[in-house]
């Protein structure tokens, strides 16, 4: 780990000033930043510890929910309102990492965690995300866990968050503060595709602090989070699906589909959603939606299986969500 200075500002305003120092980074739970600092994939010169800022509340707001950026993953999944009305979010969070990590990881940090691409973590190999311009080792290398949608020749990494996939299906917004600005960013716009600048995971500006995630009122229908992985727990998704399905009797009224493990950002399958609106509920319709969700997907060899896997997982998650509502 490179040497750095450390400070823990007393309040939000002080934090926003402190982050102006050269090479400064926010430290929340640290479960991702410290991890990457140890392999020197991240080399901040100054850490601004925001973990104790009073941003750890969950409160109801306009029929929806306001989740403070410092709310831990455990607190989020354990919140009775979330469990009752946003089970897809609780499930997504609970399917991530381990209990120890969730006890420490924060909502803001989870959104900003970086890819688990093996090469990104190994400074002895080229990686455009870690060292822009050095090349992408995964493209011709071992890319079993990599993206099938929205990738570029510069980077085929995926965003590893489970939580963000559920938030994508829930149309969450990210609230962001800087010394002279305050904005809300739709989660769909928050993470970006790699393009030629894979070093940027999100559109967050330098020095901007996430203060909260805002959830609109819960969508009607059954909610399901399905995570496919190599082992039964403590493992990142090969593919994951957040599905919300509202039916009226035998017909699908509306559906929402978000995928994880397939792209540089949580991936919303809007066309598949539209395709389902108003059609009779049937296995074929759901399977067709799964196919639509992966339209244009491209494998890179080791990850080709993700294309049918994602399609099938979408279909099965939709079926489960639809069933839930009937019960």
């Amino acid at each position, binding site marked *: 780990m490179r040497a750095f200075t450390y400070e823990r500002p007393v309040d939000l305003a002080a934090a926003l000033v402190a982050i102006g120092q050269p090479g400064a980074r926010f430290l929340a739970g640290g479960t991702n930043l410290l991890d990457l600092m140890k392999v020197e994939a991240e080399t901040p010169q100054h850490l601004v510890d925001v973990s104790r800022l009073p941003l750890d509340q969950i409160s109801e707001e306009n029929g929806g929910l306001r989740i403070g950026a410092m709310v831990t993953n455990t607190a989020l999944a354990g919140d009775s309102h979330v469990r009752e009305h946003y089970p897809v979010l609780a499930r997504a969070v609970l399917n991530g990492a381990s209990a120890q990590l969730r006890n420490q990881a924060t909502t803001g940090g989870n959104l900003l965690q970086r890819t688990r691409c093996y090469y990104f973590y190994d400074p002895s190999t080229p990686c455009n995300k870690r060292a822009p311009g050095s090349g992408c080792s995964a493209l011709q290398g*071992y890319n079993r866990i990599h993206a099938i949608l929205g990738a570029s020749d510069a980077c085929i990494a995926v965003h590893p968050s489970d939580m963000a996939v559920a938030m994508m299906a829930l149309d969450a917004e990210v609230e962001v503060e800087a010394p002279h600005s305050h904005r809300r960013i739709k989660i769909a716009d928050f993470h970006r595709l790699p393009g030629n600048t894979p070093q940027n995971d999100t559109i967050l500006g330098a020095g901007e602090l996430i203060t909260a995630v805002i959830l609109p009122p819960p969508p009607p229908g059954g909610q399901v989070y399905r995570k*496919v992985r190599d082992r*039964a727990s403590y493992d990142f998704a090969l593919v994951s699906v957040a599905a919300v399905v509202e039916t009226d009797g035998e017909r699908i009224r509306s559906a929402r589909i978000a995928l994880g493990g397939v792209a540089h950002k949580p991936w919303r399958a809007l066309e598949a959603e539209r395709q389902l609106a108003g059609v009779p509920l049937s296995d074929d319709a759901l399977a067709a939606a799964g196919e639509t969700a992966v339209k244009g997907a491209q494998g890179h060899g080791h990850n080709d299986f993700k294309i049918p896997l994602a399609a099938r997982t979408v279909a099965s998650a939709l079926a489960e969500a639809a069933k839930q509502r009937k019960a």
Partner: protein
Amino acid sequence: MPDTILGQPIDRIDGKAKVTGAARYAGDRRAEHPAFGVIVTSTVGRGTINKVDIKEAQAAPGVVLVMSHENAPAQAPFKHAGDRHARPKPQLNGARVHYYGEPVALVVADTFEQATAAARLVRVSYQTEMGAYDLAGNRRFAYTPAELVQGKPDSSLGDFDKGFAQGAQTVDATYTTPYQSHNPMELVASLAQWDGDRLTVHCATQLVDAAHHSIASTLRIPLENVEVISEFIGGGFGGKLPIYGDAILAALAARQLKRPVKVTLTRQQMFSVTTHRAATIQRVRLAAGTDGKLTAIAHEVMSQSARMDEFVESAAASTRSMYAAPNRLTRHRVVPLDMPVSDSMRAPGDAVGQLAIEQAMDELAYKLDLDPVELRLRNEPTEDPEKHVPYSTRKLVECLKRGAAEFGWDKRPSVPGTLKDGQWLVGFGVAAAIRGNYRRPATARVRMDENRHVTVEMDMTDIGTGSYTIFAQVAADALGVPIGQVTVKLGDSSYPQTPGSGGSFGAASCAPAVHDACMEIKKKLDAGQGPGNLQAEVKSAPGEEFKKFSQYSYGAHFAEVGVDTSTGEARLRRMLGVFDAGRIYNSKTARSQLVGGMIWGVGSALHENAVVDQRYGLFVNHDLAGYHVPVHADVPAVDAIMLAGFDGKSNEMGSKGVGELGICGAGAAVANAIYNACGVRIRDYPITPDKVLRGLMRPANLAQQR
């Protein structure tokens, strides 16, 4: 049988130390004013070092020493011959790079943080050469090794081709097993300390005696000037048979700095600096008549070997003794690659060999339309089919029958893909287990004081196997004292020599020595001496029985697996193993080892895979997030039954090896259960969702799911 503490499921005598954190592992050792060393490893797979630029590192805060091949002290040269674990292990002794992740420098600083940061500042430039990293792609370079641990690389009997042609049903299939990494939870670490010309090394090793020789010979100092201490070891599984750069470099640096030095590998470094299990390609051919009797068996193995240091994965060795068949063939070939050094990993040879052969037996059973348990029963030999000697003991039939009954094997769906449980297709699988039984010479020292307190001393180790406890049981039993009156001291080179922990030979080798030494004490007591000031040191060694008898331990595994029909995820639901390992010294600790081994088998079937980037020779997924081993959630009810037994040909105590038996065959039972569940046969381990899914999507299989 009289009441004896031997065999009883007593709690581990070192248990309290382990659950309170009091047990000290190598990296836990502390010293006055220590310095911390961090190893820098190569970033090319094959080539020569042009230059090691240490300027920046040397100038970094706290750095007290930077060592590379340019300034490392002279050491004994590396030797290919001899005991592979007692050989000199020279470090930083040349510009040649043999594999990706090989130590090329050591940075020592006042603190761990400083050393870690400065290690990144060592700039090494290379003349990179084209390396060979792909096993299948380099099979044309395969050669026949001189020998295996178990004898000749090849064997044949009868006329295989003829026997194969006679079969009413045949299987001719190729199975592949990936690189696996031991990854004991304890990181390999050493603390070296000099007192004048005397060196003490606290290190994580399974073989204290071998480490002792290895360190002394590398540094070219007298054996008696070195003490190796390895009191607690956080798992070995073969990964701590040799010593590594940490021990030698810590010793070299400590000598130069006149200060204790601690060197710990990172988890990432464990994948390349320590050894691994070689990848294999195995072709198995079986033929049987309609009566289910094998007419021919062939098992041909090709495995990776480091170009710099040969190791043969003897995967077909036990096939020579397993099933009856008149026509037989086994072959071992190795392919030299520019990869890190492979070596023994839990049940070397057998673990991966049985992933292949026991799956092939399952395939044959389906072709014959015969229950796979029955197929095995029908091919039970009366003597070792290749050595033509009797078995010392062999209760495979009992293992299979008992297991089938206890597991409820009769509920197995006979047609794959027919048992459903919600989203899951459920299947049952069986596999047999065989593991070579070994014994080596060992010496134990036993003392008794005036309070009849007994102390046992050996340089043997306890890597989690329960050595401390069972030797106390052996001594308490032999001398008729309560177990609380026995102290067992292990893991110090100043104690009498033993083979250490490896090849499951630890208990079978050492327990007789402890027993015999106790008997000497008893003789003295009976002669009216003591009880105070009594001491006996006895060496116990294997005899001719290992030539006159075919010696193995056996088992049978039964697994129930669920396969998710939409994603291809395969998950274990329950598993039972029944084992024949002779006499059991402690049924609690032995069961733990067997269950642990079975779970290793589950991991080898479903998870473990150290992937090589074929361009660089790098193990890409070199950490515990990328290299998957089973976690709690992967392990539902797993149980082991030990048949009562006694193998007097193995040793006078009647015991055989336990620690490696559980893994043998276990993975094949899981693979076979997957086939039974969903009709997908995966011969390329591990059986991950991507592979199962591909099978599920085949048109024939899709129809079946409807």
